[in-house]
């Protein structure tokens, strides 16, 4: 197991380097730069000075290695959009709202989705199943900005129960968290229903019944444990996807989160921030998949304990 984790960490490092190269090259291959004349009307001399100051006059490979050398020392540079702070400061400031709201969305949505999926699977083809499936389909098909608008319209405008903005006080969190929760809830409801139905159709469940085990024990010990195996693996990647903020949800609820920077850093050619965001996401996904695979192996004896005698 340890050897496996080590090998995976090596592959994470390789992925990291490859992705950083691709992003860096793509970023610079888009025509234009941060100090183009129409965006920033400064004199030629000032622009040259600025470029030199930021190292943008150097050949690309020098820029790349400089940046990556910095990354190794946790120096991600200074964002062009907000020169008063470092990229790290900006990230740690802006990520908090995203992490709180998105994270809560997953932590609330996923368990609810599992419960909904279980209820659907245990009452297959009943009205519970149909309602659960309809909810799950809605959650997956309705775009999150529509969900957000509906939530604002209903709970803030019509009912006037909750504020329309989503930060900073906890009572303001409710609506954006609900918007974030929709997708994990829907995904988990579908996955859980499918996994449980699949497990329940397997022969060993008939055997468990034939042994005289109670239905409750069969469901809660055997069916759930087997169904959990595929569910565990989707959790972490989903958490990371959601907890890094959605530009739509954050724009709707005026949350000063990370989401907006994903777009703005590309728009204004904020190279250091863009690189930092992409590397961060890459790194987190790599680790998330690594952890998922480790957990998968731990709960699945077929992987944990190798082959047949």
């Amino acid at each position: 197991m340890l050897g496996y984790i080590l090998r995976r960490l090596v592959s994470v490092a390789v992925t990291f380097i490859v992705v950083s190269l691709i992003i860096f090259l793509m970023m610079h291959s888009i025509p234009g730069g941060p100090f183009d004349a129409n965006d920033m009307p400064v004199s030629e001399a000032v622009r040259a000075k600025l470029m030199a100051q930021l190292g943008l006059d150097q050949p690309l490979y020098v820029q790349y290695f400089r940046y990556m050398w910095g990354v190794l020392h946790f120096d991600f540079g200074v964002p062009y959009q907000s020169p008063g702070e470092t990229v790290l400061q900006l990230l740690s400031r802006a990520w908090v709202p995203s992490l709180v709201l998105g994270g809560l969305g997953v932590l609330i949505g996923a368990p609810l989705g599992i419960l909904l999926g279980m209820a659907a699977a245990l009452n297959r083809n009943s009205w519970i199943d149909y309602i659960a499936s309809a909810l799950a389909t809605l959650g997956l098909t309705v775009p999150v900005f529509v969900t957000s608008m509906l939530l604002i319209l209903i709970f803030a405008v019509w009912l006037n129960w909750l504020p329309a903005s989503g930060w900073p006080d906890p009572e303001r969190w409710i609506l954006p968290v609900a918007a974030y929760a929709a997708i994990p809830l829907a995904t988990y409801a579908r996955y859980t229903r499918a996994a449980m139905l699949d497990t329940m159709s397997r022969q060993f469940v008939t055997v468990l019944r034939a042994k005289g085990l109670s239905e409750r024990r069969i469901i809660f010990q055997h069916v759930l444990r087997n169904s959990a195996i595929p569910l565990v693996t989707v959790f972490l990647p989903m958490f990371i996807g959601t907890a890094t903020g959605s530009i739509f949800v954050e724009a709707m609820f005026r949350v000063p989160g990370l989401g907006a920077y994903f777009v703005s850093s590309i728009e204004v050619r904020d190279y250091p921030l863009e690189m930092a965001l992409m590397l961060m996401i890459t790194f987190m996904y790599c680790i998330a998949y690594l952890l998922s695979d480790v957990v998968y192996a731990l709960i699945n004896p077929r992987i944990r304990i190798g082959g047949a005698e």
Partner: protein
Amino acid sequence: MPLVEIQDLKVRFRQYGGTIEAVRKISFSLDAGESLGIVGESGSGKSVSCAALLRLLPATADVTAAKLMLDDVDVLSARKGDMERLRGRAAAMIFQDPMSAFDPVFTIGHQISETIRAHRTVTKSAALKEARELLERVEIKNAADVLAYYPHQLSGGMLQRAMIAMALSCRPKVLIADEPTTALDVTIQAQILQLIKKVQAEFGMALIMITHDLGVIAETVDRVLVMYNGEVMEEGPVAQIFDAPRHDYTKRLLASLHTKFEPSRGDADAAPALQLRGLSKSFRIRRRRGLFTEYGAFDAVRDVDITLPHNRIVAVVGESGSGKTTTGLMAMRLTEASAGEILVDGKDISSLSPEAMRPYRKQMQIVFQDSYSALDPMMTLTEIIAEPLVIHRIGTPRERTEKALAWLERVGLDRSFGSRYAHELSGGQRQRVAIARALILEPKILVADEPTSALDVTVKAQIITLLKDLQAELGLSMLFISHDLSTVKSLTDSVVVMYRGRVVEEAPTERIFADPRHPYTRALLDAVPATNPRDKRERSFLSAEEISAATPRMTVIQTGLAPHPDPQLVTIAPGHRVEAIVTA
């Protein structure tokens, strides 16, 4: 008061667009300690009836009966909790595929002890101790280790033993065995059947043996129920069923046990149609060691020589893992051999390019075991059968279709089947289509890889007859791969026995049955179930250690040959070779 009493049981399955009558009307009873066999083909309702007795059927099943009693409890009206108490204690079941009968994420020990604890209040450690004793009673030697094993760590035979131990754990009054050996190799099947008989006597249980295999019936039960299409055709003592069957279906079933064929007439002098020389296959296996990967080799087939004369049928017999299928695939060049030659009419094809192989592909065809996955579900039967003609650019589309339809008739299907799809057919019908597709190019060599092992007995006999007829008509040379010695006996001219990737014995068919020399061949023959209850016998098995040992016992032979420490294939009579250690 009988232990089981069933009167006028009917089971219907509701499904989209109507209902299916799985059990039309059956009645039977079973006394304590009695052994009853229920024999019938798939879809005859034999398993469904027993599942109904324990109320294990899905919610889509409508079960009605004048009487459905198990151990004095009315199953139809019993409450849920009462049913749970009844299951496992009044009647316990063992199932066909032991691999899928255990929950993969819990240990064997957990699953046996949880059964004990579901019915009795005992501590976990006491239940585990009992589980261990049960494993010992089903002759598992390392019972303490097996308790901590997960199902995937055990072989099919061992798992079926553990399954029996689990079934015994609540001292059931009747053991219902639903095709308990169908998924197992012949030698393992014989051991499991013997074990079931033994524990039945020791625990004083009644037994219901559900099977499609008359041999299993002959070996294990006193009374037989013959089912067909959801109804009981015939019922009686086992000897009467075998010696004086009254119903036509029973007679057909019995006849399928004794199919006889004319031996094929080949020309012994001519060059063989197909000759495999020193054929080997080793698979590379990766083993992880920390950051590095080590490569090892697994020899699936080792140095195999097989000769297939023109117009003959040669059987390649062996159990799972013996390398027989790999050998067949290599002979067809569907799997590349690691070493060795494949001679077709004396020409080595083992290293021909795909282009150069084309004319040979036309002469060599294969029929697989699983007809369902061997036929493209998106193509009509005509398209499937005509496809080889398309590939080899033979004829116009109209001629191809006509020829395909003619072949449909030739394999015993109506021309109207041409526009159907594979899923609309039964297993036997699909296998007929696969045969038509293989033979439409009129090949010289046919490899038949277990073509009947997924089929019901009567259907199996029909397919074998069809293959034999076509072989004689077309003068085919056929390599018939099988694990089933009884099929081989009536069909083939000579037999090659494979064990762990090697040929261990080879002889004309009569000779191998009359005078088997290699201990493994003897064990295989010994394991074949009796075809009549009168022929039941005690068996001597290769022990578990011998089965798992890298080299099984060898016949030691004194010949004029130079002595050799490694086992050699030695010719002991014309056409009869056996692997043995040659001593001075």
